[in-house]
């Protein structure tokens, strides 16, 4: 709490440096006047009293500077100065600045891109309930000259697999297709999946929880 208050105060005085300094000189002025009044009460004439007060006070400029440092924002302002100085230098040497920015941008971009790939391929697990137990079956057909894994088993093959195999807790079939989707006034081409009745009940199915919520 105290840290927060202190931080707020510092931030405020950063934006109100002028106001802070005006208030400060008023505060110091008040001190000098009190000292003068005090000296006059001891019998000094006004001018001598003022001079003595000023002398005992020492340098007002130094006090102002010390107070400014005590406010604890000096480093932040110095940072601001450095930042502006940097900008001015950049503005003077355009080509160098452009090159620097480009180098940094490319470097950061490359790192980000590589990490996205690394994250998707190696780090993030499949978004299914039990990914270790989930397998994908396909029936390669060399006649089509297509990647082997895009051809799923035929429905008859699937039913045989489902009835006869003992290696799987459950099996479900899906096929991708394109359909025209009509919303009354508009017709849109939509990518869909044709699935069997078991699809939403298979324990590791990606759709199971969401589908149930929709019901």
């Amino acid at each position, binding site marked *: *709490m*105290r840290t927060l*208050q*202190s931080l707020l*105060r*510092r931030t405020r*005085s950063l934006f109100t440096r002028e106001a802070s300094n005006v*208030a*400060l000189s*008023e*505060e*110091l002025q*008040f*001190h000098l*006047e*009190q*000292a003068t*009044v005090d000296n006059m009460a001891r019998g000094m004439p006004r001018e001598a009293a003022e001079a003595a007060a000023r002398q*005992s*006070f*020492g*340098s007002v400029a*130094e*006090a102002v500077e*010390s*107070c400014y*440092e*005590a*406010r*604890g924002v000096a480093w932040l302002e110095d940072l601001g100065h450095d930042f502006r100085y940097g900008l001015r230098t950049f503005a003077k040497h355009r080509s160098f600045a452009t090159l620097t920015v480009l180098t940094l941008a490319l470097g950061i971009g490359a790192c980000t891109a590589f990490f996205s790939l690394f994250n998707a391929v190696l780090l993030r697990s499949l978004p299914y309930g039990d990914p270790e137990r989930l397998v994908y079956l396909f029936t390669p057909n060399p006649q089509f000259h297509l990647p082997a894994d895009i051809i799923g088993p035929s429905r008859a093959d699937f039913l045989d697999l489902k009835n006869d195999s003992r290696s799987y807790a459950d099996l479900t079939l899906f096929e991708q297709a394109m359909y025209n989707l009509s919303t009354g006034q508009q017709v849109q081409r939509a990518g869909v999946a044709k699935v069997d009745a078991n699809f939403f009940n298979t324990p590791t199915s990606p759709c199971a929880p969401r589908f149930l919520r929709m019901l």
Partner: protein
Amino acid sequence: MTKSSDLLLGTLDLLILKVLTLEPMHGWAIAQRIHQLSDEVLTVNQGALYPALHRLEHQAWIEASWGESENNRRAKYYRLTSAGRQRLKTEEKSWSRLSVGVQGVLKAIG
């Protein structure tokens, strides 16, 4: 910053916090009060007083507000915060430990 001025700085903070337990005061009054209460032994250097006040204010141990002085002038009054009261307790403890220690050494070697 030398060791001795570190000590003085800490002592001034302690004295300021302590006199502010009496009532809210402006800088001049704080200096006067310390001077009087120390039987005129301690004179607070203004060049150190105001930086110390501002530092304490920014530590949120004291709060400042503008008010009217005894002779109807605008003056900045400082008031102890509850965090400042806590701070004063710790400072008083560490000061008495220090002064007991120093006294011990002085007495031990008559």
